[in-house]
């Protein structure tokens, strides 16, 4: 393409400090060396290379511990001010492979609720430490509320059904729930972070180690994209967990969603940026109408402009969200503002990246549809992330949350 993505899609400089830049550069080098330059090999031998590439990223570069406090062996990116940095890192990963990005995004979203300086839960971090202070890759996955089943009343989180229940016992809690759907990676999870209905049905988070007694994993689920994060439905048969594994502070589930919107958005803008590069190469070399370079045709140029516009605006919007999250003094006390903005922006960013890819594919003819060009993989991966983030009912739940915040709706 002959142009630098950073020069094309600029960001306000103050959002990215020197430390962030150096980590981003490391991740970019990893992406180029381990994935982008091996795309063909990757296609043929995805599962093996996927594991190898992740090992280098998580363990050699150390991203497994990026957002953990230094006292727990982490890099100490554990404050709100690191939001833009983490966004930058995840978007570099998304540029290479969205599945790797999604697994990491789930991990960082979870840590954001338990291991940041303002909410550091020492006891829980202590209990979970074997899971992340490890020289193996660990996969925490999230189980969020979603669609309920007709005829069954369930506790709700803002209209979405909470399928799992956390019951207090003498020594801790038992977690129960049938056929729950992790966002991704259910088959390979070492830890489940589950939104449960606690006392009186109020939402809370439960950390359920993957090897606990009473967990059943269903057969692996075939999905459109993110194929390397093998997923399965999970049933918890009264799984016993210690007391500290349940977090029931007010607003904790909103906090998880807030970070998830940011972090999955980061993965998607990264994938969108790589799609932009693929399309740019195509439009510079493909000739139509018997002699005109594709990009020099005004109709095609207008589609290319659409793609650039969506890609650029999605990035600006997402980094704006990261900036907002980095300044908690700008939020209201329970984080509802941050939650609403992250949902609005998260949803808009996913739509923008999806639209960019859908439009760009229009120009690529069969090449866009062939696995060889890799464009279609981004298309499948991002659609998967977008649907996941909807939870249920397309954008309707996000609209309801937004209307509640801005208009004080009480009946919806």
């Amino acid at each position, binding site marked *: 393409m002959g142009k630098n993505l950073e020069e094309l899609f600029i960001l306000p400089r103050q959002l990215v400090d020197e430390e962030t830049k150096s980590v981003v550069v490391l991740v970019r080098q990893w992406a180029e060396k381990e994935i982008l330059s091996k795309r063909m090999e990757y296609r043929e031998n995805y599962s093996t290379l996927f594991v190898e590439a992740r090992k280098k990223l998580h363990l050699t570069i150390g991203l497994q511990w990026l957002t953990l406090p230094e006292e727990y062996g982490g890099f100490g990116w554990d404050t709100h001010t690191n939001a833009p940095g983490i966004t930058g890192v995840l978007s570099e990963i998304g540029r290479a492979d969205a599945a790797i990005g999604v697994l990491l995004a789930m991990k960082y979203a979870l840590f954001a609720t338990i291991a940041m300086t303002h909410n550091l839960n020492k006891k829980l971090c202590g209990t979970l430490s074997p899971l992340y202070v490890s020289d193996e890759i660990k996969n925490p996955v999230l189980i969020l509320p979603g669609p309920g089943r007709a005829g069954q009343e369930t506790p709700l989180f803002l209209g979405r059904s909470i399928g799992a229940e956390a019951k207090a016992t003498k020594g801790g809690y038992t977690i129960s729930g049938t056929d729950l759907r992790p966002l991704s990676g259910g088959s390979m999870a070492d830890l489940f972070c589950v939104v449960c209905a606690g006392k009186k049905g109020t939402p809370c988070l439960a950390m359920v180690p993957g090897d606990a007694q009473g967990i059943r994993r269903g057969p692996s689920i075939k999905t459109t994209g993110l194929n390397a994060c093998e997923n399965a439905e999970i049933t918890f048969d009264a799984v016993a967990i210690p007391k500290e594994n349940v977090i029931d502070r007010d607003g904790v589930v909103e906090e998880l969603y807030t970070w998830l919107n940011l972090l999955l958005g980061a993965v998607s803008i990264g994938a969108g940026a790589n799609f932009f590069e693929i399309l740019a190469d195509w439009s510079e070399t493909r000739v139509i109408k018997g002699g005109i370079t594709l990009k020099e045709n005004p109709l095609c140029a207008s589609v290319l402009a659409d793609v650039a516009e969506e890609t650029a605006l999605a990035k600006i919007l997402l980094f704006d969200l990261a900036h907002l999250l980095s300044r908690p003094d700008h939020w209201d006390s329970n984080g509802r503002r941050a939650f609403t903005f992250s949902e609005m922006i998260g949803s808009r960013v996913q739509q923008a990246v999806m639209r960019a890819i859908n439009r760009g594919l229009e120009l690529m*003819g069969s090449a866009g549809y062939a696995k060889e060009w890799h464009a279609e993989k981004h298309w499948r991966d991002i659609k*998967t992330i977008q649907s996941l983030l909807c939870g*249920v009912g397309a954008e309707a739940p996000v609209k309801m949350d937004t209307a509640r915040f801005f208009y004080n709706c009480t009946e919806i």
Partner: protein
Amino acid sequence: MKHFNDFSRPEEYISPFDRHFRNVIRKHLEETVMPFRRQYDEDWKDHHLIEPAFDKLMGELGLQKSLFPQEYGGWGLAQSDYIFRMGYMLSEELGRADTGMAVALCVTFWPLLVIMIDPFVNERLIKEFAPMFCNTKKAVFAANAMTEPQGGSDIENLGLLGGKTIRTTARLDGDEWVINGHKLWPTNSGGVAKLFGVPCTTKPGSNDPDDFAFIFVPADLPGVTQGGAYEKAGMAADKNGDIWFEDVRVPSWYRAHGPGDDAKAFYQLISFGQMASCAFLTGAMMNLYERLYEFVSTRTYNNRPLKENDAIAGIIGRIAGDIDICRILGHEAAMIGDRRNKPYGKPLVSEDVVGRIRNIKDFVSDRAVENFGKAMDVLGAYGADRDWDIEKHWRDIKIIQLWMGGKQLCQMEAARYFFNCETL
């Protein structure tokens, strides 16, 4: 309860064949294809599952011979005055089950139609190829090999470019054509087709329609080489690959009609393909409705079925409304084709027909791409699941928007037609 059958189609447009045969085909597909289609993606290379399904549909049920005249063992449909509508019905039912199968089957008709639809009928070639398709219970495929490595759109853009970018050449040597060239992506390539229809040029670089030739090439001739199937985002039941023609010799009378008429007959074929594309899409969308209906009735938001929430109802109402409108438009596209022999119809080889049908296809494709995407979002965390079938259709149908010259060519054709553009 509403049924997917309740989507609109103008009753006056329904052909006699449709009334009798739709249910037979539907039942057949519901038994032989729909229960297995979720496994087709893994079968893209070998077609272990897909091939027997084709044998049943094309060979045993006999669809592959339907175009041929009855005296050669066919059903005589190509000569009926409802060939486009019968194509629509068949494509729609197939599309509901699997658009990959739909395209593989319908493309078999595609090159054959070049020699079978009035006024461009070549009796000798029909007689020559009839046994290949009519005397067997095994599926036999044909392919229409247009696209070349340098681009497919330009070849379809016959109105503007007149075939000047085609690099596959045909040279007359005595009473044989000698074909040289490289095609890629045709449906039923990758070793599937027994017969190719090959658009080529008798004078490279010429945009004179007289130099455009449509020549039939049996796949087993010396000099024909086929590559393996490409791995794609979807449409596993359709194999696509490279075909190389190196000094391939066919009898001179394997050319469809001759100078001038080949280009016209090929133009007809483009409209048939666009019309069938609409039908694949409305069929797939009818299945979308069935699957979505189940999800929104059985899954809840706020502890009420999704369909009973006003905001979600607004989304799914729009989806169903679009399907209804698209189906009417698709039937109109088919009727435009079938009106050709009527006093109030237009010839297939006219800008009216090509422009309008391309326009309808462009519109229906856009609605389909949008609605499948939206439906996946309605399913939320389940949207990307193979088990709900919607994601499979979503992957499959994207290429319908892109093939046959792509979306932009449709837009240009519409602009040329409605605004008399002269330089585009």
